[in-house]
C-alpha cells in the first residue's frame, strides 16, 4: 500500500518532469517537427505530430523514468512511434512536399524553386538508405541529438550509431554524386 509520503514523492517527481517537459517545448517542438516532416514528407503534418508528441509525453509522465533515457531522447521515441503510426494508418507513399519549403522562403522565386528541387533530390537519396540509416541521420541532423542520445532512442550502442552514420553519409554522397 502506498503511503502519504510515497504519494508526495511521486507527485514531486511528476511536477519536476512536467517542468522539464515544458522547458524543452520551445526548442524541441521545432526539432521534432523537422524530424517528423522529413520522414512523412509533409511539414504541415510534421507540425501536428510535434504538438501531439508533447501531449502524449504529458499523459505518459507517470511512466517516464529519467534514469533509463533522457527526456529529449524519450520525446523522439514518441515521435518515432507517431511517425510509424502515421505512415501505417495513412498508407502514404513517401513524398516530398515542395510547397513546404517554398512557403518558408519569401525570396527570389527561382532560388526558392531550386531549393525545392534540392529537397526533392536529397529526399530521393534518403529514401534509398535503410530505415535505420535514415533514422540515424534525421535524429542527428534534424533532431540535433548527440550520437549517445540517438543510440538511446534507437536502442543501439553509441558505436553502432557512429558506424551507421558513416555508412549512411557515404551512401548519400555516392547517390547525390551520381545524379
Amino acid at each position, binding site marked *: 500500500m502506498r503511503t502519504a509520503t510515497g*504519494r508526495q514523492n511521486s*507527485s514531486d517527481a*511528476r511536477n519536476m518532469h*512536467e517542468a522539464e517537459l*515544458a522547458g524543452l*517545448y520551445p526548442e524541441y*517542438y*521545432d526539432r521534432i*517537427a*523537422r524530424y517528423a*516532416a*522529413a520522414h512523412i514528407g*509533409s*511539414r*504541415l*503534418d510534421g*507540425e*501536428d505530430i*510535434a*504538438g*501531439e508528441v*508533447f*501531449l502524449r509525453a*504529458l*499523459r505518459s509522465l507517470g511512466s517516464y523514468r529519467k534514469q533509463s533515457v533522457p527526456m529529449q531522447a524519450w520525446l523522439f521515441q514518441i515521435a518515432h512511434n507517431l511517425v510509424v503510426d*502515421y505512415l501505417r494508418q495513412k498508407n502514404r507513399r513517401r*513524398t*516530398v*512536399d*515542395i*510547397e*513546404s*519549403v*517554398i*512557403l*518558408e522562403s519569401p525570396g527570389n*522565386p*527561382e532560388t526558392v*524553386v*531550386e*531549393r*525545392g*528541387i534540392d529537397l526533392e*533530390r*536529397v529526399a530521393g537519396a534518403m529514401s534509398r538508405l535503410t530505415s535505420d540509416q535514415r533514422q540515424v*541521420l*534525421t535524429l*542527428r*541532423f534534424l533532431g*540535433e541529438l548527440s*550520437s549517445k542520445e540517438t543510440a538511446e532512442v534507437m536502442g543501439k550502442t553509441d*558505436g553502432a550509431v*557512429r*558506424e551507421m*552514420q*558513416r555508412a549512411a*553519409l557515404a551512401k*548519400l*554522397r555516392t547517390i*547525390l554524386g551520381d545524379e
Partner: protein
Amino acid sequence: MNKEKTMENFDKILDECIDRVNSGESLQSCLTSYPACAEQLKPLLSAAAKSKSAFAFTPQPHAKTAARGRFDAARVGSRGNTQYTGGWLSRVVGKPLIFAGVAVAAVVVAVLYFGSNQPYYPIIPGPEPHAEGNFVLLISDDINAIADFASVDVTISAVQLFASGEGKWLEIEPEIKQVDLASVQGDDSIQIWRGDLPEDEYTKIVIDVESVRGVLKATGESVDIKLPSSKLQLHLPFRVSAGTVTSFTYDITVFSTGSGHGNSKYILKPQAGESGAVVAGRKQD
C-alpha cells in the same frame, strides 16, 4: 593499429565534427582540426550539410503557439486530476457499481478531452455549398510564367480548411473543379465554392490537386507542370463569423525554373503574398 580500430577512430572524429556543425561551427573549422583525415571527412560532412539544409524549416509561429496552448491547457487539466485522485478513488473503490460508472465516465471524458490517438487532426466532411453562405473561396493567378501558356487547367478534387479553435479539418468539395489559370490572371478570379462554414479561426487551407495540364502558347505543345505532393498548402489565418461574408482568394502561380531556351521546367505553387481573406470589403491583416 588495425583497420577496425582506425575506422572506429574515424567514426568518432566524424561524430565530433557533426556535433560541432550542429552547434553552428563551420565545416572548414572541423577539417582544420583534423588535417590528416580532412580528405575523407570533407565529402561526408558536405553530404551531411546538404541533407540538413534540404530539410530545414522553421515551423509556423501560429501553429507552434496553438500547439503550446493545447499543451498548457492539458497541463492545467492533468494537475486538476492529480489533486483529486486520492480522495474520490479511495471512496468509490469499495463500491463496484459506482466505480464501474466512474471508470466508464473517465474513459469517455479522456477520449473527449484528448481526442483520438491520431497524431493528426481528423478530417470531417464540411457543409454543402449554399448561394448565400458566409464563406466564398476564389482562385486567382499572379502573373509570372503564366504568360508562356495558352491554358493551364488545374483540376481540384477537394479543399481542406483547418479550424484551429475546434482543432479539426473540414473538407469541402468545390462546385467548380477545373480552373484555367490563364483566364484568372492578376485581379481576375473565379469562385469555386460558397457555403456556410462554422464560425472559427481558420489557419490553413490545403487544395488537393488531381491534375495540372498546360499548353504552351509558342508551340501549342502540352507540358507537365510539377506538383510532387499533389497538394497546395497555404498557412494564412482568417476568421469566419456569422453575419459577415469572408471571401478568401487563393492565388496559384506558375513559375519557370529553366533558362527559357527550350529547357524550361514549370512548377505550381501558392502565392502567399497575393492570397488572403476579405470581410465586408476589408482585407484582414
